[in-house]
């Protein structure tokens, strides 16, 4: 036995809680593994990186052959994205140059001038982005509130046919957007909800509701029932117990759910494409149609995508421990 302590086991061990028993070969395998993962992650991020640099390229640099990695960064893409422009007539060019030198033009106007154009107004994209914010924001708030109530009821009470109801709620989320959209289109047209903010908010609320119920139920299930029972014994009403005991405990879960709903509504494309045309159109379908209009402005598309991407990347980092729940409807917890 003493000999065993000096020598360790004869075969190298790869899994052990004792550091001295782990095989040195295993440690080097570990660092090779880390390197491999790192390389994979970098390869995975190439497309994101490409989009990031394209957003800051001038038009000529975007289409250069071979593609440039080193270039002079410009905000041209962003200017193209957010503004409508017209070509400046030769006669007025001098006038503009003087104004630029006198410092009368703002940054965007100067950049537009460098490409021989003047800004005539904000582009459609600005309005679409505003629509996206309004629709995603309001629908998220409503669906989280409704979802929270429903989730609480499902989590705490005996409800006849509970599992069937939950199944039903989840199954609505499994429907392909395109399938539901045909009748919705007709309904919305009948109710004059087509291409309105109200219609889209309603639709996205429902779209996120099933998700919110499932995810929040997962979070609420984790809060011990005993807390509320103690409060009830102390004379709180059910509603008081819900608002004063359960809600503060569930804040993290609610925050995570809110952000997931926000992302889904923010990224949604199919409904927006089919149920809006002008007034209530959100940003994703409008980025897609930007390609069609005269001269493909890749830098503008990249700039638009970048604006879409950055919030999502931040969210991914903030929510990393909840991602698993988020993508499996709260069914699987780490």
């Amino acid at each position, binding site marked *: 036995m003493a000999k065993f302590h000096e020598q360790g086991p004869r*075969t190298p*061990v790869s*899994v052990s809680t004792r550091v001295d028993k782990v095989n040195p070969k295993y440690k080097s395998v570990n660092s090779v*593994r*880390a390197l*491999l*993962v*790192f390389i994979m*992650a970098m390869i*995975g991020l*190439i*497309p994101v990186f*490409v989009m990031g640099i*394209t957003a800051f390229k001038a038009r000529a640099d975007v289409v250069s*052959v071979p*593609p440039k990695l080193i270039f002079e960064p410009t905000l041209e893409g962003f200017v193209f994205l957010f503004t409508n422009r017209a070509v400046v007539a030769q006669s007025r060019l001098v006038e503009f140059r003087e104004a630029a030198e006198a410092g009368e033009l703002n940054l965007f106007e100067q950049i537009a001038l460098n490409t021989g154009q003047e800004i005539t107004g904000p582009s459609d994209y600005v309005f679409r982005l505003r629509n996206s914010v309004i629709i995603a924001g309001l629908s998220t708030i409503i669906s989280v509130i*409704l979802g929270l*109530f*429903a989730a609480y*009821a499902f989590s705490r009470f005996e*409800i006849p046919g509970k599992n069937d109801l939950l199944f039903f*709620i989840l199954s*609505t989320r*499994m*429907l*392909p*957007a*395109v*399938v*539901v*959209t*045909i*009748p*919705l*289109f*007709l*309904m919305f047209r009948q109710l004059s909800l087509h291409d309105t903010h109200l219609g889209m908010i309603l*639709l996205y609320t*429902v779209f996120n*509701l099933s998700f919110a119920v499932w995810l929040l139920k997962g979070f609420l299930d984790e809060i011990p029932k005993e807390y509320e029972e103690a409060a009830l014994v102390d*004379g709180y009403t*059910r509603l008081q117990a819900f608002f004063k005991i359960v809600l503060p405990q569930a804040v993290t879960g609610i925050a995570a759910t809110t952000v997931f709903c926000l992302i889904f509504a*923010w*990224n949604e*494309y*199919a409904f927006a494409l089919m149920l809006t045309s002008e007034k209530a159109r959100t940003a*994703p379908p409008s*980025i897609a149609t930007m*390609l069609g209009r005269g001269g493909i402005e*890749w830098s503008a*598309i990249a700039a638009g*995508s970048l604006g*879409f991407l950055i919030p999502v990347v931040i969210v991914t980092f903030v929510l990393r421990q909840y991602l*698993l729940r988020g*993508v*499996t*409807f709260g*069914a*699987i917890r*780490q």
Partner: protein
Amino acid sequence: MTTTKAQDVGVPPITAVRQRRRQLSDRAIINLFIWPTLLLLIGINIFPLFYSLYLSFTEYSAIARQQPVWIGLENFANILNNERLWRYFATTGRYAVMSVGLQTILGFGLAMLVREKFRGSGLVTTLILIPMMLSPVVVGLFWKLIYNPTFGYFNYLIGFSNPSLGPDMLASRWAGQPVPGLALTAVVIVDVWMWSPFVMLLVLSGLKAIPDYLYEAAVIDRASSWFQFWRITLPQVAPLLLIAVLFRTIEAFKSFDLVMGLTGGGPGDQTELIAVNLYRQAFLGQWRTGEASALAYIILIVIIAISNLYIRYLNKMRGEG
């Protein structure tokens, strides 16, 4: 006397007692809490489904002035006899098999690699997860730029610096020659890029849940690592892996955004997935609402069949957890 006693056990004074009289019964709370959600779901999801079931038996176009005309099963017969639609279903199936297969392999591999912590593993894992959170249509668009045969990065990265010799993925051409299937491969690559992390995430949580003593016992029995993988790791992760596969399969049949952003179904109809074709029939050209509704129902049945399996497994998981 009574008051002091009540305060001793913490019962709030008279005001609260009065409130209690007004308080809602549990029954009322359940109704109040659940019905708004159910009504919304019924109004915006279930009613439309029945409406489109009716439409699927009619001849109707949303842009025509005519009312729907009942034609029975004719729409379904037309669809099942339409060779093109069978081809789109086949394309969707091929796409699902390829992308889900690759995602499973890559995702599983990645999960095995990041399974044990190393310096910075949390950060790297999160970086790997970024693609799946992005908007598919935006992803489709910027991959379109990456695939561009002249100024895109893809060809350079796989070693073709001369545009006329390399592949033009989205046009299904290689050095000018048509290579059918290249465009679908391009879509599969993007889908795999986006969703392998999803499989990784699920498998990873499965791996973390495997109790250490199983491996310790195997080490004591001098089991080879190959044996450990097949007899411990794989069976233990299998339920979660299956969930990931089912989920991705459902999503593949629903796949719409990505293809719209990337190829729009082209070139020709090489990447015309069934959901894309449904959109085209329902909202473009002649707006064949009736026939599109019938097609939607056929797709729905396929998806419900897969979803059923998925939800059954979820319930089982929840039952255990």
